[in-house]
């Protein structure tokens, strides 16, 4: 079997769990050409195959696991894969990416993608060994945590190098933000992909591959790789990356972000945490870290393993914690006990729970408790006062088991507040149903636009900009013009921020399709669209992607298609909004004291740059046609969800 382009396996796997059938299908070359891989593939598949208003936890929902052309081919930080489905947490586009070693193994086994349909009658796991694919009974694994499951699957298939992605108890119990865990500590955390797996009775996917990946122009490709090596060892970003991410991992950000007053604290009451030092990367490094770790094919290597040796949480041992986990389970709940945070992080990894959403659900409960909306009885007798680390870990057990208050919180803050009522909606910090990630838009204005417009809900990984955050004047001038650069570098100004969010969304869409990490693209800003244009042609042989314009067009195609998925599900401009707290309650302290986020002008800029209608946040037909999505426009027109641009506007 030969595929038109290199860098691809040229084949994907379609698995029907209801019928217990699987089929290998050739990857259409237009998929590679128009959608590159990863999130691009998923966008096309979910748009084509899901009916609008599909129940995310029903057999009718599809689950995509995809890799990109860079996966397994030495490209920088490319040991990744992604999962996508209609999210049970948000009811819209769900997508989550994951590092580790699983993605490359899938490619080496000969697949660019697996699409799961249906629901198995009994728990199963899928074992892929190159061309050999089989369902295996998982009844005995049901109820087991992710560590045990991974170990046992490896033992059963008789190869300890097999890569396993699996769910824990949370996924089985359909906790709406259940994660899929890979290689023990790497998570596809957000938007509840674990719950989708659970709903399909799919406990795990195990892969082993021996096929390798070839590139179109080996010599030219290795020249690019040599440049990558230089950038990571001697280039201007090598030292900054290693002295921060390399030395402390992502928790390095705790101190950095607290300094700019953007560290979510007390359920987003403020962005400044006075005890930030106690939960900082430095503390974790000096007292708890035991080993440095890395995802496959990464030169930055921000991963660590940490332990707690004594005290209440003795015996804690897990990967991470990452910045987002430290903030969500720490400052966000006013928990300054790093050992409690490490333990909570381990529990989330074992149960397979997204740490961000879990932390946000717990802080929601704590704030409701503070305001008397949630009584001690309703809290199952737990003392939910701010900062109670024991309550934090107790609630994670309850959420995973869906027990008492945990059953309510397992619905996510939107679902929980809807069920609770009594004004609790005010404390449900989410956008489009997704709990807000570790930024505060009052201290970093473009984040407001990032969170509001992000295709999977309030999240940083679709379009967060570091250009304004770090004041990269040169990058700002180069990308947006010298006249705008100064204003862009002003963290507290809303001006032009809609444009940079659109630009970042394009960049990340293509990075999420080629499939590299945000580290290297988001920060340090080593790889921009021009790097992708340098990488793709020698990798794949698609010479047209040697032009930044073409790369941008593909990025816009993917962004538009994902947004159209949400439009089809009923999302409009009113959904792309911030919780009132950010718009009305001035930041009480920290460097951004007194600030609120003025979202509307940024949204106007964003929709204008996207070529979508500013009033409704619906797409214009000419925009969709320009990026090659005419048939998508035709389909949306049936329900009046695509607009004709009025000439002159």
């Amino acid at each position, binding site marked *: 079997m030969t595929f038109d382009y290199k860098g691809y396996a040229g084949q994907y796997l379609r698995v029907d769990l209801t019928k217990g059938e699987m089929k290998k299908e050739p990857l259409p070359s237009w998929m590679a050409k128009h959608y590159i891989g990863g999130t691009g593939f998923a966008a096309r598949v979910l748009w084509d195959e899901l009916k609008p208003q599909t129940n995310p936890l029903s057999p009718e929902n599809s689950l995509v696991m995809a890799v990109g052309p860079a996966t397994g081919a030495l490209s920088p930080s490319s*040991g990744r894969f992604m999962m996508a489905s209609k999210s049970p947490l948000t009811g819209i586009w769900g997508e989550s990416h994951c590092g580790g070693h699983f993605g490359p193994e899938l490619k080496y086994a000969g697949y660019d993608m697996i699409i799961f349909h249906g629901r198995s009658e009994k728990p199963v796991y899928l074992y892929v060994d190159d061309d050999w694919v089989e369902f295996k009974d998982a009844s005995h694994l049901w109820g087991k945590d992710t560590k045990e499951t991974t170990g046992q699957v490896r033992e059963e298939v008789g190869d300890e190098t097999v890569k396993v992605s699996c769910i824990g108890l949370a996924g089985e119990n359909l906790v709406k933000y259940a994660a899929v865990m890979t290689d023990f500590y790497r998570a596809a955390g957000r938007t509840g992909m674990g719950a989708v797996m659970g709903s399909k009775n799919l406990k795990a996917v195990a892969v082993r591959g021996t096929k390798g990946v*070839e590139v179109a122009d080996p010599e030219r490709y290795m020249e690019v790789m040599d440049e990558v*090596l230089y950038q990571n060892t001697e280039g201007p970003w090598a030292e900054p990356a290693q002295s921060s991410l390399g030395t402390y991992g992502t928790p390095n950000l705790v101190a950095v972000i607290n300094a700019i007053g953007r560290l979510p604290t007390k359920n987003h009451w403020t962005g400044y945490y006075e005890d930030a030092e106690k939960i900082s990367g430095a503390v974790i490094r000096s007292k708890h870290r035991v080993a440095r770790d890395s995802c496959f094919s990464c030169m930055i290597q921000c991963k660590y393993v940490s332990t707690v040796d004594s005290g209440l949480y003795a015996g804690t041992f897990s990967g991470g914690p990452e910045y987002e986990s430290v903030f969500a389970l720490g400052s966000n709940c006013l928990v300054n006990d790093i050992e409690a945070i490490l333990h909570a992080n381990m529990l989330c990894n074992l149960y397979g729970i997204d740490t961000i959403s879990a932390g946000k659900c717990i802080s929601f409960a704590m704030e409701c408790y503070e305001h008397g909306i949630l009584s001690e009885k309703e809290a199952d007798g737990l003392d939910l006062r701010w900062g109670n680390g024991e309550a934090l870990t107790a609630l994670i057990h309850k959420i995973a088991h869906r027990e008492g208050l945990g059953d309510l919180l397992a619905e996510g803050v939107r679902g929980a507040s809807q069920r609770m009522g009594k004004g609790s909606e005010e404390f449900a910090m989410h956008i489009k149903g997704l709990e807000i990630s570790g930024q505060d838009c009052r201290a970093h204005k473009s984040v407001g636009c990032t969170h509001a417009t992000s295709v999977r809900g309030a999240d940083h990984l679709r379009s967060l900009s570091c250009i304004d955050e770090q004041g990269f004047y040169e990058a700002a001038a180069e990308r947006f013009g010298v006249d705008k650069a100064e204003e862009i570098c002003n963290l507290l100004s809303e001006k032009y921020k809609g444009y940079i969010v659109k630009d970042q969304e394009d960049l990340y869409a293509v990075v999420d399709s080629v499939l590299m990490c945000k580290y290297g693209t988001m920060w340090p800003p080593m790889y921009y669209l021009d790097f992708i244009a340098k990488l793709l042609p020698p990798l794949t042989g698609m010479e047209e992607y040697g032009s930044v314009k073409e790369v941008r067009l593909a990025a816009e195609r993917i962004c538009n298609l994902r947004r159209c998925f949400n439009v089809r599900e009923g999302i409009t401009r009113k959904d792309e909004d911030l919780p009132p707290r950010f718009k009305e309650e001035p930041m009480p302290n920290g460097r951004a004291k007194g600030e609120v986020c003025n979202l509307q002008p940024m949204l106007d800029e964003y929709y204008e740059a996207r070529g979508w209608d500013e009033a409704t946040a619906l797409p214009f037909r000419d925009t969709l046609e320009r990026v090659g999505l005419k048939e998508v426009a035709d389909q949306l027109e049936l329900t009046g969800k695509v607009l004709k641009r009025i000439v002159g506007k």
Partner: protein
Amino acid sequence: MKTRKLLALDPGKCTNCRICELACSFYHYKSFNPRRSRISVLRNDEKCVSIPTVCHHCDRPLCQEACAVEAIYRDEATGAMVIDYDKCMGCNLCFTACPFGGISIDPLSMMVVKCDLCDGDPWCAKYCVRKAVEYVRADKAGIQRKRAGFEKISKLMPLIMKE
């Protein structure tokens, strides 16, 4: 005096990124395929320990001694122990003889394969950003190890000095 170079491996620095495996397989097969790599990172996930393993090109190679048809010989230019596939009869005894797993079975050809030092410029070392694999003069490698040990001890020096 002839200086010998060796692949100095340091499990303490290895993070399991496996770029060495990618580089090795690509050098030899123009295909990124860790399972065809001659260097492998052995990993204990539970303990988070990663150990790069590769042929040591021993001074008294057991693989060579085990070979009945003298298919394994030392390449004079690079000092690497290499396999002459015209002679190799596929008995796999070299694989059995090596106590370090320096010889592996290629999953595609099913033949024994081993590190050949990439004709004197080993790619595994070239692309290892953590320097867990280094291609250095044997005597220098020894000094490096001593220095690393010394640095650990020197951290304790202030404590010793105080007494």
